[in-house]
């Protein structure tokens, strides 16, 4: 149903050129100064530092850990794909939440763009594409680090890359949808809290099967859990049919998020 609506919204009326122009504006902003670059580059290090501290450091105390399928792997191998998924999430969210909100509410960037032939869905697609670029750069670099540290096999690392793009896409769309609902900066505290809670409890640092009953149920409906499972399944080289279920969840979230965001942009800015 939602898919159909999006297909209708998109079909024949979206111009690749106009979406490209929205992306191009973001690329242009890169030239605005060193500070944006700094923030961009430093964002990559966060999950990497967690990998080194918890995965390798605490991992030395843990030793090996059983994964669901009966195998036992070193703790760092267990944590690395989770941090990869987090990297995809952070990259996409930093563009579609903080920056998106600023452009929508304060800089009036979208208002200016909508005064041209560009349409709300094209803004949403453009912003999302840009978030995907940032997220993919993070994950590609992170995969290189994983291969170098022998935490992933190069072939399976390649296989995991498209999965991280899907993670970036779905979190980008979700972030955008949420941003259109935020009332002010104070709501960002809530969002950061939610993001950090996901980070700590999505099967990232210990298997979800260990969690107490209610928490395990709640975690299984949240998006980072499905992202971690999907990416971990591929990166560790043991793909199963079950991964399709996780991928399906993320596709639905991406489409729904995009649809919702485009509608909200239209309602907020074209009213």
């Amino acid at each position, binding site marked *: 149903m939602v898919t159909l609506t999006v297909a209708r919204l998109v079909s024949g009326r979206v111009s690749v050129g106009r979406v490209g122009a929205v992306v191009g504006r973001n690329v242009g902003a890169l030239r605005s100064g060193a500070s944006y670059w700094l923030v961009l580059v430093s964002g990559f*290090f*966060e999950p990497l530092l*967690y990998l080194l501290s*918890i995965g390798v450091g605490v991992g030395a*105390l843990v*030793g090996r850990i059983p994964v669901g399928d009966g195998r036992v792997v070193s703790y760092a191998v267990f944590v690395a794909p989770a941090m990869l998924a987090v990297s995809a999430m952070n990259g996409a969210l930093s563009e579609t939440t903080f920056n998106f909100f600023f452009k929508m509410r304060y800089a009036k960037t979208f208002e200016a763009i909508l005064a041209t032939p560009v349409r709300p869905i094209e803004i949403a697609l453009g912003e999302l594409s840009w978030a995907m670029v940032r997220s993919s750069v993070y994950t590609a670099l992170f995969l290189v680090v994983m291969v170098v540290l022998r935490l992933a096999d190069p072939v399976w690392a390649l296989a995991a890359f498209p999965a991280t793009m899907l993670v970036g896409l779905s979190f980008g769309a979700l972030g955008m949808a949420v941003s259109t609902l935020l009332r002010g900066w104070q709501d960002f*505290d809530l969002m950061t809290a939610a993001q950090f809670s996901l980070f700590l409890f999505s099967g990232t640092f*210990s298997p979800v099967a260990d969690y107490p009953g209610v928490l395990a149920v709640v975690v299984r409906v949240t998006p980072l859990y499905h992202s971690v499972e999907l990416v971990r399944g591929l990166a560790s080289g043991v793909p199963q049919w079950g991964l399709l279920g996780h991928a399906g969840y993320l596709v639905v979230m991406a489409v729904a998020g995009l649809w919702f965001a485009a509608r909200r942009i239209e309602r907020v800015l074209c009213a």
Partner: protein
Amino acid sequence: MAHPAVAVLERHLTLYKRLWRASLFSSFVLPVLFLASIGLGVGGYVGEVGGVPYVEWIVPGVLASTAFQMAVGECTYAVFGEFRWNRGAHAMFATRVSVWDMIGGWLLYIVFRVEIAVVVFLLVVGAFGVLSSPWVVLTPLVAALLAVAVAAPVTAFSATIDHDSYFALLFRFVMLPSTLFAGVFFPVEQLPPVVRSLAYLSPLWHGVELSRAATSGAAPLWPVWAHAGCLLVFAVGGVWWAGWAFRRRLQD
């Protein structure tokens, strides 16, 4: 007549009364979540460290890192804004409040904030029965010393910089690595020698060692006076730097 530093403290408390909701999660909930995810979740696979269960081992670390992170977090945008956005520092400086009163009142406020968070954390953790040593009553004191040792130089930094994007650097290249590699989650002895010496430079490590000594009742790696001395050096150096930075901003 109340000391001007007290008036400054009161002003920050008045502001806190209005804005406390924003820091609820980071001050009170986050430390407990960390403890649950890493201490309990991962701890289940770790077993014992230094003769105690892992979760018990990281309690003092998480406590110190909460004090550390709050001290960093509170002294960045808030201080920068006092000079650049709402010019509250200029307003104060137009009265009989001196630069030292401003810094003193501000650090008192930070200590107050950190103490509330630390005491709440201890109560929560204590309810689960992982605090055994009577020396634990000293942890608030350690937290206060650590908070000043961190807050003073960060306040000075925030008063010195010309653009707030430096904070992203501070968070990601100073605060986060400190939190992750200064003995909170695993002993620094595991680190390669070069990285280990960096950890020794972090006030957080000294805070973690003192706080762990207090909760476990065991002697820390270095003598207590050496750890406390390092924190004191950070505090005094930071206050001196802050005085210089404030004066430079407010007088010309």
